[in-house]
């Protein structure tokens, strides 16, 4: 378990074939970082040549500060019982990614969801645009800048009768006549 032989063999196989970086995360977990254009070739290679025939998962992470979406493809070898993560980053401003539902049929569902929730386009993707959301007119909601608090406040009304709620910290400041300076407020209780 601890010598990670299988893991390193896998890592080498993928990184040397595509001249990319990667690492063994722990036993049974290997990740590689690919350019978005090579992702489908890596997935195909892993599936056909290495036996990673099962795709467990596909996910998207919005790194808003870096201006990127990170896509993670999680694939699995049922015999070796290894999991390979193929990770790539795409520009948040031009969120286009290759469609891979020809490699795994169920990628279609993930991609439809990502299209809807993150606004990522997958050229050639078949499937209705409204997957989970209906008549959605805001920005794709899983993007980090979508503020659920604000949306809820604008869309729904709050039940009456709770206006008398007080903030403990404020109440105490008021009572003792102190002012928490603005630069310190970010450390006050959330």
């Amino acid at each position, binding site marked *: 378990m601890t010598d990670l032989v299988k893991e390193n063999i896998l890592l080498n196989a993928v990184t040397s074939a595509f001249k990319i970086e990667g690492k063994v995360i*722990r036993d*049974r*977990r290997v990740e590689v970082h690919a350019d978005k254009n090579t992702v489908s070739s890596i997935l195909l290679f892993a599936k056909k040549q290495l036996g990673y*025939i*099962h*795709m*467990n*998962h596909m*996910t*998207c*992470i*919005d790194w808003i500060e870096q201006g990127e979406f990170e896509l*993670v493809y*999680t694939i699995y070898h*049922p015999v070796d*019982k290894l*999991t390979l*993560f193929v990770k790539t980053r795409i520009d948040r401003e031009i969120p286009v990614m290759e469609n891979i539902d020809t490699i*795994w*049929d*169920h990628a*279609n*569902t993930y991609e439809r969801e990502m299209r809807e929730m993150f606004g990522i386009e997958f050229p050639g993707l078949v499937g*209705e645009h*409204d*997957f*989970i*959301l*209906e008549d959605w007119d805001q920005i794709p*909601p*899983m993007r*980090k800048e*979508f503020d*659920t*608090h604000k949306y809820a406040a604008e869309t729904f009304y709050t039940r009456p009768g709770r206006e008398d709620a007080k903030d403990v910290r404020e109440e105490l400041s008021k009572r003792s006549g102190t002012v928490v300076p603005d630069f310190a407020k970010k450390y006050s*209780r*959330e």
Partner: protein
Amino acid sequence: MVREKETTLYIGPQHPGITGNMMVKLKVQGDTVVSAATHVGYLHRAFEKLIERRNWIQAFTLLCRFCVPEPDPMELTYARAVEELDNREVPERAKYIRVIVMELARMQSFMLWYAGQSGSAGLYLTPQWSVGDRNYILDLFEDLTGGRIYHMYIWPGGVRRDLPEGWTDKTLRTMDYIEKRLDEYNKILFDNTIFQKRAQGVGIVPKDKAIEWGVVGPVLRGTGIKSDVRIDEPYEVYDKIDFDVPTQEGGDIWARALVRKEEVRQSIRIIRQAIADMPGGAYYNKVSNPMKWTVPAGQAWAKTESVRGEIGFHVTSDGGNKPYRVHVKGAAYTHGVTVLEKILPGQNIADVSFILNSLGVCPPEIER
């Protein structure tokens, strides 16, 4: 034969069977399905988004709600992903407790499956029995966690409370009772010609396509492929426990039913062993103040075998006190969309919800 006119038929979005609110849009010719498309959107609660606004412990209370029939594996999978990121040891006793909870969760969920599977075949006695007997398992949960359906019990670092006094004895007694009841279920369901006729040869998932379609759990094992996270990538103390992973050939509803029928018994076996072997000691490796607890930056992928197959959590931390992203993948995500759409064509309308049930489709898990 006269070519019949094609009509569109909607199954759902009211519970088609008892799986939850979703809609399958069918094109049918006569009684035969020509094509099917899954529509979800009736249960979307944006949990994954809401979690990003909550801290690591607050988030845990939302997780169980991802899937109503089987909340516990969600808690466990999340806990394991977070523990991996945080390098947090879990006390041995907690691991055993977790295994027991997982298997009880599996059993209560099977009881619901019994109900759904037979109910959607028009056999209404089994649901009465199994849902009734499920309550005895829920009683155990209530004693253990204070809640019946949503337990909010397994959290990062261990479990929330130690076993109450006398709980293991009560559990063992319940196991004996359920074991006896299973024989009676057999008589009214598995030995029942009606059920056999309805299930055999229907809703076939082809063995050669199964893995590629992303099929997991009992559905996959029903095609003869032995795959179970509990043995493939053992977690908690499953590697110290003796149990079988049943498989069946055929890939039809019947095969899946037989797999499940055996799995309940395996669960009882696991619970008995876990209770016998459970060590004393701590049940929780306390995390820091929940409002301030931060988890080191990184990503973790944890998976757990639920009653419907593999549940995976992809958890990303940016080092803060809230999860940066939690993406949940339940078995139904593929079963309810890709697989369903592929195997429904050619089937009889009357079998649609029967098939839905046998695939273990849980709509809240699809849209979360």
